[in-house]
């Protein structure tokens, strides 16, 4: 889902970049003062885990492969604003250090994976949480990545390289990630359930254990 340079028309890339910067600036203001110093290293570990997990390409017979993106997972574990900043950092490192995703389209990639996937995934999770946290985390991961794939498909489908074939890009990427997203949802739910039991203090809504 990392768009390389040359695929998205410049005005679209710049517009998405500006939007991404604006949302991340708001996110930074919203979390200002909410992370305790004791929690900061653990937040780093969660983000680093997302980077490492993204390197694991799950081979799927039939010639596709997909990897966990972790947008919804970050939002559920860290809260949406900190989650957005964490995934944005991952996406920026992937582009700058490893050439995974272009530099001109970095803003568009951040928008799709660190903003759309994070906030949509979180909204779905919150909406469904009353009916069971495990199911809610699964649906958040599943629909979050599908939403991110759809915004990517729209950016590509409105660009000249893709011959403005919006219907084709939306159909291939939307359906593709709706199916592959089941893996994302499964990993999100299983790892979330494990961590929620093992480390309840990691959760954003829990007071830090050393606050007294």
């Amino acid at each position, binding site marked *: 889902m990392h768009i390389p340079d040359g695929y998205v028309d410049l005005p679209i890339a710049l517009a998405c970049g500006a939007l991404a910067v604006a949302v991340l600036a708001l996110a930074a203001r919203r979390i200002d003062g909410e992370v305790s*110093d004791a929690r900061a290293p653990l937040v780093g*570990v969660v983000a680093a885990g997302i980077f490492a997990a993204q390197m694991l*390409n799950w081979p799927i017979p039939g010639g596709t492969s997909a990897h966990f993106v972790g947008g919804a997972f970050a939002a559920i574990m860290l809260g949406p604003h900190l989650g957005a900043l964490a995934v944005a950092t991952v996406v920026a490192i992937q582009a700058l250090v490893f050439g995974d995703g272009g530099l001109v389209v970095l803003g568009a990639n951040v928008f799709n994976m660190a903003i759309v996937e994070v906030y949509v995934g979180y909204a779905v999770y919150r909406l469904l949480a009353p009916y069971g946290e495990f199911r809610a985390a699964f649906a958040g991961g599943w629909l979050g990545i599908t939403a991110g794939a759809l915004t990517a498909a729209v950016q590509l489908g409105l660009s000249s390289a893709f011959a403005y074939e919006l219907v084709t890009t939306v159909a291939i990427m939307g359906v593709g990630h709706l199916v592959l997203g089941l893996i994302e949802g499964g990993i999100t739910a299983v790892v979330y359930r494990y961590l929620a039991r093992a480390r309840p203090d990691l959760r954003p809504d829990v007071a830090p254990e050393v606050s007294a």
Partner: protein
Amino acid sequence: MDALGRGLAVLLVLTLLAPVFGWAAGQVGYAEPLENAAEATGATDDADPVGDAPLPDYGVPGLGSAAGTFVSAVVGTALTLLIVAGLGRLLGTDDRA
């Protein structure tokens, strides 16, 4: 082991798995829906990287593919850990104050 230590151990396991998964994905042929969409619309040739990444495609120039993937995984994971922990501290509060 405390939470941080356990977290770091999990990260090490993930980085060790990276070359294994890389090999397995290579066996089935790596293709994402994005690449399928590019092929369907004839966009593939328009990919035009701007600038050179220091560790292109999660590999180290001159190093074997498995070793390069492992080094890339360690470097990327460590960078993410340091930057996000630093960001958290920067935006955070000192709750001992």
